[in-house]
C-alpha cells in the first residue's frame, strides 16, 4: 500500500515538475510504442530520456507519451508535441515512420528523430543500433556452453532485423562449433510473457539447453532458470530475474545518442543523418558475463574488442541456407545487405516465413 502511494505521489510530482520547468533552452520529446514499464524496448528508450535529463539538468526539458499505437494516432501525438514547442522529437518505433515524415513537413523548424526506419528528410534523422554484433557474441557463448549442441531462439516477427539477429547468433556459434544447430520458434508477438514462457518450455522440451530471444519480456529467462538451463537477456539487463541462468544480456543504450543529439540542438549544429552504431560507440552494451567459466568470458571479451575495433560479424565465408554464397572469404556484407536481410545462413533448423 505504501509503495502504491509512493508511486502515485511520484507520478504527481513528475507531472508538476513537467509544467514547472518551462524555462529550459531545449525541449526534447519522446513517443513510445509500449508502456515505459515493459522492462524492454520502451523502458530502455525512457532510460535514455532520463539520462538526457540527468546530463543537462535545467537546460533541457523532456516529455514523453507512452503506448502510442502506430498509425493515425501516432500522427496526432507527434503533431501535438510539435505544436507544444518541442524542439526535438524522438519517435521510437518502426511504425511511426510515415507519420513522422508527414508531421515533419508541416514543422520545418522542429527536429525529428525516427528510430529503426529508413526515410529521412532535412529535419528528419534516423537512428538504430547494431544489435547483431551482440548476438554474434552470445552465439559464441552458446556454442561453448551448450551440451546438446542445439540452442533455441524465440523470434518475434520475420523482419530483417530479427533475421539478421538469428544469422549473427548462428554464425557466432558456428565459429566455435561448425555443427551447431539452432531451433527457431516464431512467437508472432513482441510482448506476451505467457506465450514467450510457453515457447521457452517447448524448446527446452525439444532438447535445447540454451535459450535466446528476440521478444521483450523476461519470461523465457525465468523458465530457463526454473529448468536449470541458461539464456541471455534482451534489451535490458535481466540478471535479477535469472541470477543463475543469465550468461549476459544485450543492452540497448540510447542515452549516449540522445545526449549527443540534444547537445547538437543546443549548439545549433544538428543535421539530418542516419546513425547505425553498435558496441564501439556504446549504443549496444554487453551486460556482465556471469555464470561462465573464465576461458569463455575471455573469448567473449576478445570478440567484443574485435568488433569494437571495426570487425563486422557478417564477414565471409557465409553460405545461405539454400547453399548459395552470400559473402566470399574475408568479404564483409555491406550495411544495406544486413539491414535488408531476408535469408537464413546454413544450419538454421527452420524455414523463413515469407
Amino acid at each position, binding site marked *: 500500500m505504501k509503495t502504491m502511494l509512493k508511486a502515485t505521489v511520484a507520478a504527481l510530482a513528475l507531472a508538476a515538475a513537467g509544467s514547472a520547468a518551462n524555462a529550459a533552452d531545449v525541449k526534447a520529446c519522446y513517443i513510445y510504442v509500449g508502456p515505459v514499464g515493459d522492462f524492454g524496448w520502451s523502458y530502455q528508450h525512457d532510460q535514455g530520456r532520463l539520462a538526457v535529463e540527468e546530463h543537462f539538468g535545467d537546460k533541457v526539458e523532456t516529455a514523453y507519451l507512452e503506448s502510442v499505437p502506430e498509425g493515425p494516432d501516432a500522427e496526432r501525438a507527434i503533431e501535438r508535441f510539435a505544436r507544444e514547442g518541442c524542439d526535438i522529437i524522438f519517435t521510437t518505433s518502426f511504425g511511426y515512420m510515415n507519420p513522422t515524415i508527414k508531421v515533419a513537413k508541416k514543422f520545418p523548424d522542429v527536429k525529428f528523430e525516427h528510430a529503426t526506419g529508413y526515410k529521412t528528410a532535412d529535419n528528419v534523422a534516423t537512428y538504430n543500433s547494431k544489435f547483431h554484433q551482440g548476438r554474434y557474441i552470445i552465439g559464441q557463448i552458446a556454442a561453448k556452453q551448450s551440451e546438446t549442441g542445439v540452442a533455441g531462439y524465440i523470434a518475434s516477427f520475420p523482419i530483417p532485423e530479427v533475421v539478421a539477429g538469428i544469422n549473427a547468433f548462428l554464425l557466432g556459434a558456428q565459429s566455435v562449433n561448425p555443427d551447431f544447430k539452432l531451433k527457431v520458434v516464431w512467437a508472432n508477438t513482441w*510482448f506476451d510473457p505467457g506465450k514467450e514462457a510457453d515457447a521457452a518450455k517447448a524448446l527446452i522440451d525439444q532438447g535445447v539447453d540454451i535459450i535466446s530471444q528476440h521478444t521483450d*519480456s523476461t519470461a523465457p529467462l525465468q523458465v530457463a532458470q526454473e529448468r536449470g538451463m541458461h539464456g541471455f537477456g534482451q534489451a535490458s539487463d535481466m540478471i535479477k530475474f535469472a541470477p543463475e541462468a543469465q550468461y549476459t544480456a544485450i543492452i540497448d543504450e540510447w542515452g549516449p545518442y540522445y545526449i549527443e543529439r540534444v547537445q547538437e540542438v543546443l549548439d545549433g549544429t544538428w543535421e539530418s543523418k542516419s546513425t547505425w552504431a553498435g558496441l564501439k560507440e556504446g549504443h549496444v552494451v554487453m551486460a556482465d558475463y556471469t555464470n561462465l567459466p573464465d576461458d569463455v568470458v575471455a573469448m567473449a571479451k576478445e570478440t567484443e574488442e574485435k568488433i569494437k575495433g571495426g570487425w563486422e560479424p557478417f564477414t565471409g565465408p557465409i553460405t545461405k541456407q539454400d547453399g548459395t554464397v552470400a559473402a566470399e572469404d574475408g568479404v564483409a556484407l555491406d550495411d544495406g545487405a544486413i539491414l535488408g536481410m531476408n535469408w537464413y545462413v546454413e544450419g538454421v533448423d527452420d524455414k523463413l516465413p515469407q
Partner: protein
Amino acid sequence: MFEAVLLTVITAATPLLIAAIGELVVERSGVLNLGVEGMMIMGAVVGFAAANMTGSGTLGILAAILAGIAMAALFGFLVLILVANQVATGLALTILGIGFSGLIGEAFIGVPGLKLPQLYIPGLSDIPFIGPVLFQQDAIVYISFLLVAIVAYTLFRTRLGLVLRAVGDNHGSAHALGYSVIRIRFLAVLFGGACAGLAGAYLSLAYTPQWVENMTAGRGWIALALVVFSSWLPLRVVVGAYLFGAVNVLNLHAQAVEFDIPSQFLSSLPYLATILVLVLISANRRLTLVNTPACLGKPFVPDR
C-alpha cells in the same frame, strides 16, 4: 515428451478457465461484463504487489481476488444501480484496469516475483506420468477445477442456480416472483470479478512470476470468447480453455520439431478452431437458444 506438453497446456489453460467460468456465471445472470481483461490485470498487479510485500503467495491470491471484486463492484454499481450501458461500461473497466494497474505496478517493474509452490503429495506425486501431471500442480490449478465443479453443480442442481438462471432468462418474471434481480446480479458480478482477479494472480504468481504492464496480453478477451464458445455450459468451458491452450502450445512445439507449416498459420489455429466450433455449435440452433441467457445485456429497472 507428451507429459511435458501436457504440463505446459495446463499452465496455459488455467487462467483462461478461471476467468471464463466467472464470466459464465455473470452472463448466466443476464449481465455482460466486457471488463474481464481490466479486472484480470488488476488482479495480476495487486496479487504480485501483495505477495511481494508480505512474502506470502496465499495473501497475494487473496489480495488479487479482492482487487477483482473491487473492480467488479464498481462495474456493478454503474450498470445495475445507475443502469449505465453494459458494453460501454465494460470497455471502460478494461481501459481503467490497464491504466491503473500500470500506475500501481510502477514500483514493481523489474522486481523478481514469488512463484507459487507446486504441491507435493508423497506417494501420488511420484507415480510416473500421472504423478507430475495430476498431483504436482500449484494450488490454483486445483482451485480452477473445483470452481468448475461448484459452478456446474450450483447452476443446474440447486435452487440458487435455478434462481440465477431465471434472472438471466427473464428478469421480469423473476422480479414478479419476488426475487431481487439487482441483488442476485450484483452477487454474480462480484463472483465474476473474484474469478478474474484469481486468474490475474495466476499470471503474475505462477505462469510468469513477474509484473510487467499489459501482461494479460488479451487473455481476458479470450476468456470472454470462451463463454460464447461453451454456449454457457461450464463443462464446455473446460474443453474450450484446454483446446485453446493446447493449440497454442502445440503451435510452439510444432515449430521446434520443424513441421513444415508457416508459423503464422499455426498462430492463427486457435482462432480458426474457435470459429469452427462456433459453426458446429450454432448448427444446432434450438440447443443454442435454450442455453443463451435471454436477458443477456438487457438493463433492468424494477417498477417499484
